[in-house]
């Protein structure tokens, strides 16, 4: 018992799918955006934010039912939550646990903030960003996004 009351599970375990743990507190909804999971997609999603964590103080957790994230999806998360851990769940059991790695580049994930960039025109140019040590650099116009990456997610 804690002074606040009994401890329990904020969100229930999932049978199959992915649990993203140790997300930087406050970034859970952005993690969903960067994964392309919005209110219009069909996944069953549970989100817990600002959960107490012995390891990182406060953290967010996302559980996605019936979807196992692919490597390139997992690595996108590194841009927003570099300490996140990914648990792949089958029959309520963690069958794989992994960290996230910065991807080399992002295709079709982030919109270039430069209004003069060719990728913001009717040309057949898909958004493409190279991941550099201090952010993301547009493949076309070299614009550097060094902060608030989540604000530029397509």
């Amino acid at each position: 018992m804690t002074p606040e009351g009994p401890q329990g599970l904020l969100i229930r375990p999932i049978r199959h799918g992915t649990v993203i743990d140790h997300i930087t507190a406050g970034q859970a909804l952005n993690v969903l955006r960067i994964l392309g999971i919005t209110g219009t997609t069909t996944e069953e999603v549970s989100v817990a934010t600002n959960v107490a964590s012995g390891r990182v103080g406060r953290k967010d957790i996302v559980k996605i039912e019936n979807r196992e994230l692919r490597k390139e999806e997992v690595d996108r998360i590194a841009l927003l939550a570099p300490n996140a851990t990914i648990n792949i769940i089958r029959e309520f059991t963690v069958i794989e646990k992994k960290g996230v790695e910065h991807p080399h580049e992002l295709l079709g994930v982030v919109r270039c903030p430069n209004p003069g960039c060719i990728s913001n025109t009717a040309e057949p140019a898909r958004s493409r960003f190279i991941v550099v040590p201090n952010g993301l650099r547009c493949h076309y116009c070299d614009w550097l996004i060094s902060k608030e990456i989540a604000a530029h997610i397509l």
Partner: protein
Amino acid sequence: MRHIISVRDMDRRAIDELLDRAAEIEARRYDPNLLRGKILGLFFFEPSTRTRMSFESAMARLGGVSLNMGSVEASSVAKGETLADTIRVVSGYVDAIVLRHPKEGAARLASEFASVPVINAGDGAGQHPSQTLLDLYTIRKSMPLDGLRIGLLGDLRYGRTTHSLAIALSLYGAEIAAVAPKGLELPSGIVQELADRGTSVTEYSAVEDVIADLDVLYVTRIQRERFPDMASYLDVASSYRITPELVGLARPHMIVLHPLPRIDEIDPRVDALPNAKYFEQAHHGVSVRMAMLGEVMG
């Protein structure tokens, strides 16, 4: 297939080799039939005199011919055709493409759709590698490129020549002094990139404060089209002017460069000084562009 899109794609060795080749060409040691039978396509979606004509001159001197798209109004672009489609089509007509376009990244996009080499001749406020190479060539004729202290003066926000030059000089250990009117300073992304490349940028509010320490003063014009009205343009444009008296404060070996055209930012009396290298700089455009054409088509 070799494209020339950005100085960011080039290492020091690649730049030095192109400049060495340009020096050979300037000394008349080149094959005047190197590009005989080849056709260069010139696609200028923005006005140009020096860049377009010097590419045409360079192609002619190497024995090739040039095809010019002409004005945008008279082309399929006026019908709404995308750049990507234009490039795909004309790749069948020419052996290399020189492109100037108002959108940043246009040349990179073109290179993805072209089946022939693409040379970037300026993309919006982005890159202009042939100008950078001829700037470097002009400096190298006066002094070694290593460890220069260069002053960049003028519109450093939108001026693509200064961005390209600063990035290239970071390969040679330059120190950069940036002097820009308020609101036209070097973009923070460029300053950050230069820092990542180990190049320091120091900002000054007046060229008088730094000219005595410079090896090179690179002057650019303020672009009138960036301002909402004539009064605000004139207010900024008149905030600096290079005069013989100002050059007199510099060390004797300091050279003054300008990508041209100039408006009022350099007093015509400076033209007669040995420090003034901007017309030589424009002439070097032909040798440097001959080296570039040979590189992608030779």
